[in-house]
């Protein structure tokens, strides 16, 4: 028998609004209205300022470690625009703040969380998202399960989950992709390929040419897009959402972008990145690109931008004030969310702490409530 071809595939790359500001009318028409484009630009700007402010907060000791989103805002807003807040889910990692805000999460939640207060993960009832996931990769399986639950409930809601290039090395990623495919779970896997996982470059993380091709093995539609182009992201996302809502299962989007900042405030990327590489990506900054687009359509000008920057500053200041204004948690609160009803041993531990009676039975000491906010 002669050899035959068992399988061939190719991966499409989508770019609509390119680096030079050239716009592909054919693909881009009707994708994002002018009003929406203005809204996305404003949101990205606010997010960028939030990032800059958060960085300063950390440097002045007012916040713990914080991962800046700088440079990746387009992938977040372009994808979230295709989702319906209150219906669809976002299952995030930590580099898509703008998407969370579009889904309805009040901005101060993210700050409060990174300031070291778990109440920042008490997601408001009308917002369908899971808390930020710091163990790399583990949340993608949750997305597959949430999607399956939506299917079982008979809804048309979809689940978007975000993760980095590094995360695709975790076994969880592969298991999540397989499950979502086999179960036809309405999940959209959004890979923010920013080329780096802390200091590990993409070519040391994987030997495949694209991240997108990993999805081929799981039998799902997959595409690579310019992740700094809100139009390209929205285009791929619309496609994926349509399929998911129609019960056709998961899709994969590789959004090629770049982390303009450090991995987190605990990192200094200058130690391992070529400054020329960073320069090249600064030129592809999604904010600059979107702004140029708006200007070319006479929707934007310097005066408007100045006003926006001022407004963003005010918004961020308010957000920071809200986050910092939250009263410190009560010491007792560590025992409050353990079980539907706390068991006796836990109550005893709490009372021991309240009465400083380690080594004694707290009931013998007479309960003096010394609970404090710490």
């Amino acid at each position, binding site marked *: 028998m002669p050899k035959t071809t068992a399988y061939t595939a190719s991966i499409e790359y989508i770019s609509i609004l390119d680096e030079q500001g050239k716009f592909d009318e054919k693909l881009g028409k009707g994708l994002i209205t002018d009003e929406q484009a203005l809204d996305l630009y404003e949101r990205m700007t606010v997010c960028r300022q939030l990032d800059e402010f958060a960085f300063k907060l950390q440097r002045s000791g007012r916040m*713990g*470690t914080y991962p800046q989103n700088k440079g990746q805002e387009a992938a977040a807003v372009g994808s979230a625009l295709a989702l319906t807040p209150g219906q669809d889910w976002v299952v995030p990692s930590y580099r898509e703040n703008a998407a969370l805000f579009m889904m309805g999460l009040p901005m101060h939640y993210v700050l409060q*969380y990174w300031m*070291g*207060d*778990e109440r920042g993960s008490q997601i408001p009832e009308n917002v369908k998202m899971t808390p930020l996931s*710091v*163990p*790399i*990769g*583990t949340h993608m399986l949750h997305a597959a399960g949430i999607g399956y639950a939506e299917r079982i409930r008979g809804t048309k809601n979809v689940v978007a989950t975000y993760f980095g290039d*590094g*995360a695709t*090395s*975790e*076994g*969880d990623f592969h298991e999540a992709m397989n499950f979502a495919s086999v179960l036809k779970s309405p999940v959209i896997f959004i890979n923010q390929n920013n080329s780096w*996982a*802390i*200091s*590990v470059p993409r070519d*040391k*993380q*994987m030997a495949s040419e694209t991240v997108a091709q990993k999805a081929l093995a799981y039998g799902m539609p997959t595409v690579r897009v310019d992740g700094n182009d809100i139009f390209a992201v929205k285009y791929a996302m619309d496609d994926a959402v349509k399929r998911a809502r129609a019960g056709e299962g998961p899709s994969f989007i590789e959004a090629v972008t770049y982390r303009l900042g450090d991995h987190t405030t605990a990192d200094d990327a200058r*130690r*391992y990145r070529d400054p020329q590489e960073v320069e090249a990506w600064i030129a592809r900054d999604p904010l600059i690109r979107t702004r140029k687009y708006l200007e070319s359509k006479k929707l934007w000008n310097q005066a408007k931008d100045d006003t926006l920057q001022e407004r963003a500053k005010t918004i961020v200041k308010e957000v920071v004030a809200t986050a910092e204004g939250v009263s*410190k*948690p009560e*010491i007792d*609160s*560590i*025992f409050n969310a*353990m079980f539907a009803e706390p068991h006796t*041993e*836990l109550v005893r*531990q709490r009372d021991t*702490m309240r009465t*400083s*009676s*380690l*080594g*004694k039975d707290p009931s013998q000491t007479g309960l003096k409530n010394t609970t404090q*906010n*710490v």
Partner: protein
Amino acid sequence: MITADLHPASIENVPQPDFSKPLPPREGDRIIQFREALKEAMSHEMRQDERVFLIGEEVAEYNGAYKVSQGMLDEFGPKRIIDSPISENGFAGMCTGAAMYGLRPIVEFMSWSFSLVAADPILNNVPKMLYMSGGQWGCPIVFRGNDGAGGQLGSTHSWCVEGLFANVPGMKMAIPSNPYDAKGLLATAIADPDPVFFLESERMLGDKAHVPEEQYYIPFGQARVCREGDAVTLVSFGRPVNFCIEAAEKLAAEGIECDVLDMRTIRPLDIDSIIASVKKTNRVVVVDQSWPFAGISSEVITQICERCFDWLDHQPVRVNTEDVPTPYAKGLEYAYLPNPERIAEAVKNVVNA
């Protein structure tokens, strides 16, 4: 490069630790950080044993997420200092095979919290391999990384795995509390033919103390008496040992003298030293930074009750973290962990009862 097939049991040409040799003095003026002490132990073993290599996330180019492997890539090259993809299950499993076939991997988990995604290799394979292969395949791996609350990292990043992992037979577990012991215990761990779980703490990596330049090997299963007293025995290991010493110093000013024992290894556990001390003081407080239920402190107290129940003048008491996930907020985290105030409170309640 490895030149010959080396069975794990083969120790040709590699000098073995001589535990009969007295340890170098703890006092001196070669003051270095905990992290440097760890690096010295690894580098020394790597120089004399070509089977040893280091793998983990960020260990090479970045010199370690916590700078433990500073300079090691330069010295040993990328074949032996390996930046791994983010794939704990992958590299722990890969090293299982490498160890079975004669290499001596040192696996750095950026945090022990992340070893949970590698539960099968580290708990279900490595410690059982020798047993299940009828003594054919050992797994001389050192798994090391940060354990415990690193300082506001939130509950998923703040695991104390000792309570959970020490339950598994077939492995050893070392938990140093200071730079001197860190070097001597890690040297022993790497030279050890069995799997060793080596638990460090992000909060201690910058701690400084005198550390001898020469390589020395602290035998496993030998506690250190850090302070002598007759009022109560304080048993601890890892970071809280330092809190015990702090509490003991304050209590001494009030006339309460504590015997403070640093266990150094949990498996094997030097129960004889604990019993000897309890027979002297008749009171014991066990300080353990992991959760109370079925943990190390429960084990220690059980063994005390089994071995010297009649010597006790007060029920054994333990100071653990509370039975809740590690809180993220600063004040809550401090209150949740064993700290000098809580230890002193327990001691006073035990002594004044």
